[in-house]
């Protein structure tokens, strides 16, 4: 199956008064129909900028460079704002974190839903209304017809996020980019929204790029996972590979940080990653994680480290599980064992 979106070597630079901030440093990824790609990382790692870069919604000063960014066979770089807004909301939908700030408080839910279709398709208002009601029902909103006349402030957080999802589905998109779609919601509602997204993804066969900091969500919904740190992917693989065989010290550290009922002992120390994320202003040499890494050596600072396959000798033909570290995969696996024992 061909890729829906194929991004190669994406770089985002922000020229600031203090110097150039290298927010995203050469990442490549692809999305397929019916598949969920999760980009996971902590705040400031560049994951949100990545999503904005695909939609071309970046802050004005950002310099975007890439070898290619191909969406459904079309190169996205160099498209005019008009051409881009024909794609946005039409072939590509986006769900943001805070549904209250992404819905317009001055228009009714119905107006905002119908606007999507009226902007992109030649349909009558009645047809648009029918589709809006159909989709509101699809996302589990009861009394959908009566909701059309309501304003966003009359809805709860969970309902608003459902409206946002319905809105992205209005034009039958091929790709949905969801940036922390459940972070502002309660745990119970979070589970419902994720379940809904998964069902709709299967039904409408859309590709999903989900951006989150929550490893619990990633494990449950991802087909493929990219772990992002300081503007780079430090590890990539299937959900199975990332969670059952984490290889990069950062991935291992992150997984060791989260309390898991039944596994971590109460009152005992959780793993911790000391230090903070490095500044991305100016030239960055070597591994960006080395200041926080328990296994750092002088080799880490010498030169850039390429992504390499976890399985040695290249018998991982598909090259699905990649990591970026000077240590061999076997050494990393050994580190993981001692970490578990400690």
């Amino acid at each position, binding site marked *: 199956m061909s890729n829906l979106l194929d991004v190669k070597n994406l770089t985002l630079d922000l020229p600031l008064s203090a110097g150039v901030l290298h927010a995203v440093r050469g990442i490549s990824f692809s999305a397929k129909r019916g598949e969920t790609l999760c980009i996971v990382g*902590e*705040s400031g790692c560049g994951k949100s900028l990545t999503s904005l870069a695909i939609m071309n919604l970046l802050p004005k000063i950002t310099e975007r460079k890439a070898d290619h960014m191909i969406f459904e066979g079309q190169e996205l770089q160099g498209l005019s704002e008009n051409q881009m807004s024909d794609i946005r909301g039409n072939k590509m939908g986006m769900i943001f974190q805070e549904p209250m700030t992404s819905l317009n408080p001055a228009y009714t839910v119905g107006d905002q839903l119908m606007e999507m279709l009226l902007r992109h398709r030649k349909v009558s208002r009645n047809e648009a209304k029918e589709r809006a009601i159909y989709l509101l029902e699809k996302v589990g909103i009861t009394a959908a017809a009566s909701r059309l006349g309501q304003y966003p402030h009359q809805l709860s957080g969970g309902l608003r996020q459902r409206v946002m999802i319905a809105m992205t589905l209005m034009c039958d998109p091929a790709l949905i980019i969801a940036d922390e779609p459940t972070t502002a919601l309660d745990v119970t509602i979070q589970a419902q929204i994720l379940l809904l997204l998964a069902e709709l993804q299967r039904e409408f066969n859309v590709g999903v790029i989900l951006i989150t900091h929550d490893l619990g969500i990633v*494990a449950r919904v991802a087909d493929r996972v990219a772990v992002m740190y300081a503007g780079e992917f430090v590890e990539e693989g299937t959900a199975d590979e990332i969670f059952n065989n984490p290889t990069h010290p950062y991935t291992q550290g992150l997984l060791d940080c989260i309390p898991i009922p039944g596994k971590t002992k109460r009152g005992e120390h959780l793993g911790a*990653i000391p230090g903070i994320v490095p500044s991305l202003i100016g030239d960055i040499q070597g591994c960006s994680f080395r200041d926080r890494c328990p296994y750092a050596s002088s080799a880490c600072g010498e030169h850039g480290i390429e992504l390499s396959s976890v399985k040695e000798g290249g018998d991982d033909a598909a090259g699905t599980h990649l990591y970026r570290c000077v240590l061999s995969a076997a050494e990393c696996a050994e580190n993981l064992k001692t970490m578990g024992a400690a």
Partner: protein
Amino acid sequence: MTQPPVLEARDIFQTFMISAGFFKGKRPLHAVNGISLKVERGEVLGLVGESGCGKSTLAKILLGLMHPTRGDVLVDGEPIAGFDRLKIAKLIQPIFQDPYSSLNPRQTVGSIITLPLKVQNDPNPETWTKRVEEIMDLVGLPKRVFNNYPNQMSGGQRQRVAIARALVNRPELVICDEPTSALDVSVQSQILNLLTDLRKELGLTYIVISHNLAVVEHIATRVAVMYLGRLVEVADTDNLFADRQHPYSQALLDSVLTPDPSLGVPDSHLGAVFPNPVDPPSGCTFHPRCAQVMDQCSKIAPTPMNTTTGHVECHLYDHVEKAAS
């Protein structure tokens, strides 16, 4: 004589009058609807529930920042209604969710942490700097940040400042309202480790309010599950996680997403949205969302039943009580 609990809430009610619309007058909203609870010395009580269930209102009442409509809060057996602000603040301190808004941006770290000593008219001003440095050391803040402003620090460091400020007067009880939800995963674990260490070192008692059950399971010794102003289940953490009684506790626990790729997204079966607290459902307020709803649930409100380590409010356990009596 046994020691009285550090904190006791006796049958607390808090009712707000909410405008029902133009010309429609006001309607009561029962944010806290009859809550009794005891927190023993050295305990960590986790308080969980969805947004809008009244947990933050309860926290404000326990902190003495709000007077309940009815009921008493007792600290060491004495009602705090008779205390002045200073005395309450010396005994109970809060740590808030967002270290970006809970610290004064115009004050240095040193003066933020010194302020509680100043406010309490601490009799030995010459020791203040030393004590602030001690507490900074204890929470893992380097001395060099003493003259820094909050905006020069990371989220984790700011939360450490907030913790230092709460502890500088050595309170008996610390109420942590979502202490780690604004923080990154790796920083969250640092703060949880710190809270655990401080509890052992200073013999603190915590109430930890959180919607993250994994965090609560890790840090709390007892858990109270709150729904629409009531505590529907209270139990020791081990009991709750091994053998939850209330269907709502079940649904909450089902919604916890552990990082296990072999499992899918759980279906909590909660279906309907959180009810409007101004117009709560009849009988058991949870019945419209309950997977095990029975006839009587919509008619009669359940009463608390004692369990081995706490209580549960659910008609499912009516027969147990009858059999026992």
